[in-house]
């Protein structure tokens, strides 16, 4: 049985024969003079004709064999070309996916499995090439209603008064035995406290920003992270123990605020406090750069940190990045590209810690 399958039409063989007979018996009619133009027929095919014009063309096509044949041929061409284009797309996908996977596999092998041996001599000139360069940060203008951005902006302004520069004194005291010459290009495992202090400083900023944004989920996450960072040094800092114990379980914002001030108090007069402050400053500056807020950037802050970090034996990459940051600020022109560059430099510093 022949079946014409369409959405609604289920015609059996007899229907098809009857319909075929009926269609064949529809008289072609003589050549008509009032045929629609080719463009009108094209419009009809595309369904662009207005109701009245379409009705008139339909009535004409029912009787005019010439126009009907033209329509039928044109529809057939369109259908065939559509089918071909669908086939082309299918083929493209069919071949491109395995080809893409193969290319990805080759790239993976080239970059991950096969790695060239590193050069043995590391000099200050080529040190940057060995440093892991983080992905470029592209600050996207965020909507004004974003509470995190608003909080970051406000925090950046507040922190400006707390940190060195603006006449403030850096609350650190560097002891003689920690002063080293700048020969290291990264922290070694024997100085984990500086790294931890930096991360704690950065995390405190994140905690404060999320608190201001009233983002409970993020606040809890940062508090948890902070607790983890403080655990290795808990024994050295006895006064913080009750705060650490309650920090991650605390549900009220006031608890977290207390947490923040307790950590700051903990680092007071300690040699690592410069790293904690630096961590806070880097994170706050990065947030300010991403929020396009240049008010926070003070060349005096950079100079102050640079001086202290030089004395405490900070990685040379940190100092170079600070130098570049200072150069950007000195140029006096801070536009989108400069904000991007600053955010990248600061993210780069964060990567080192």
């Amino acid at each position, binding site marked *: 049985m022949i079946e014409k399958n369409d*959405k609604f*039409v289920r015609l059996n063989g007899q229907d098809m024969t*009857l319909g075929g007979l009926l*269609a064949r018996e*529809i008289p072609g009619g003589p050549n008509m003079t009032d045929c629609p133009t*080719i463009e009108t027929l094209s*419009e009809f095919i595309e369904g662009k004709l207005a109701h009245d014009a379409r009705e008139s063309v339909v009535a*004409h096509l029912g009787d005019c064999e010439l126009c009907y044949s033209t*329509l039928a041929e044109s529809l057939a061409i369109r259908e065939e070309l559509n089918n071909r284009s669908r086939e082309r797309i299918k083929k493209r996908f069919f071949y491109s996916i395995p080809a893409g996977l193969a290319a990805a596999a080759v790239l993976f092998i080239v970059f991950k499995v096969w790695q060239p041996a590193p050069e043995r001599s590391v000099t200050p000139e080529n040190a940057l090439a060995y440093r892991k360069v983080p992905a470029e940060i592209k600050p996207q203008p965020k909507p004004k209603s974003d509470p995190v951005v608003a909080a970051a902006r406000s925090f950046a302004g507040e922190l400006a008064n707390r940190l060195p520069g603006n006449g403030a004194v850096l609350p650190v005291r560097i002891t003689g035995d920690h002063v080293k010459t700048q020969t290291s290009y990264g922290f070694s495992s024997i100085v984990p406290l500086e790294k931890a202090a930096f991360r704690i400083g950065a995390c405190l900023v994140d905690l404060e920003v999320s608190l201001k944004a009233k983002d409970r989920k993020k606040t809890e996450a940062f508090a948890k992270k902070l607790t983890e960072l403080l655990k290795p040094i808990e024994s050295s800092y006895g006064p913080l123990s009750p705060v650490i114990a309650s920090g991650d379980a605390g549900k009220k914002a006031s608890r977290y605020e207390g947490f923040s001030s307790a950590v700051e108090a903990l680092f007071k007069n300690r040699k690592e406090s410069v790293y904690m402050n630096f961590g806070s400053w880097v994170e706050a500056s990065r947030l300010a750069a991403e929020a396009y807020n240049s008010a926070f950037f003070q060349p005096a802050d950079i100079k102050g940190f640079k001086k202290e970090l030089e004395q405490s034996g900070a990685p040379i990459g940190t100092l170079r990045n600070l130098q570049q940051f200072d150069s950007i600020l000195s140029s006096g022109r801070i536009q989108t590209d400069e904000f991007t560059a600053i955010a990248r430099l600061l993210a780069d510093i964060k990567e080192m810690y």
Partner: protein
Amino acid sequence: MDAAEYYKDHLKQINEAISIICRKHGMAYDEEKDFAQHVHLQLIENDYKKLRSFKGSSSLKTYLYTVISRIFIDQVRAKWHPSTAAKRMGATAVELEKLVYRNQYAVYEACQILAGSPSTAIEENAAHAMLAKLQVRTPRLIRVDDPETHLPSFPDPAPNPEKRITQKQLQQKKQTIVALVGEITRSLPGEDKLLIKLLFISNRKISEIARLLGKEDRMLYKRTQAILRNMRAAMADAGIGEGDVREILDGMSECDD
């Protein structure tokens, strides 16, 4: 952008459309080459007149496809001309030849049509005899999707008497059906005629027809069913039962085969 640029930019689509038409109608390589040349000439002549007359109310691609389709239809029509033998035999022979060989009508159907005008009316046997004298011509328009059904029909020069009786009975029933169908088609509005032609001749999908006519699919489906139902009812009124219809339809299928 001027017409020449339109032409150059759409050369690929033009050639694709030409190849589709040629393949659909089973053209030989030489015929395809000739047709392609003819289409390009038509598009270029008179400083791209056909392209310059495009006003932009439809897409250029659809316009080009329609132009190429019209060129093809015009060529098919222009190429058809009656044979010298038919011309020598008179107007009836010319019309008969045209109906049978160009329009693909069966001989009895052609006779039915010719009976409409007293000047060209002819008996079926006489028509067979006349066609036997004419040179058999292959119509230009051949559908290659089912080529066997469109082979040129060779009229039986001398059917045997038994077969002749059976054929005569069948023929009477067929004549009744053709007359009935003729009546039905004449009473159909233009939209229904187009629907039937698109559905049963061009094999378009009902959804596509609905989009063209600006109607709902379901409505067109109901309309098609109603037309076929009316056709069956008219046959029943004329004393042609379901079995007769099947017999006639089978007979017609056999004739076609």
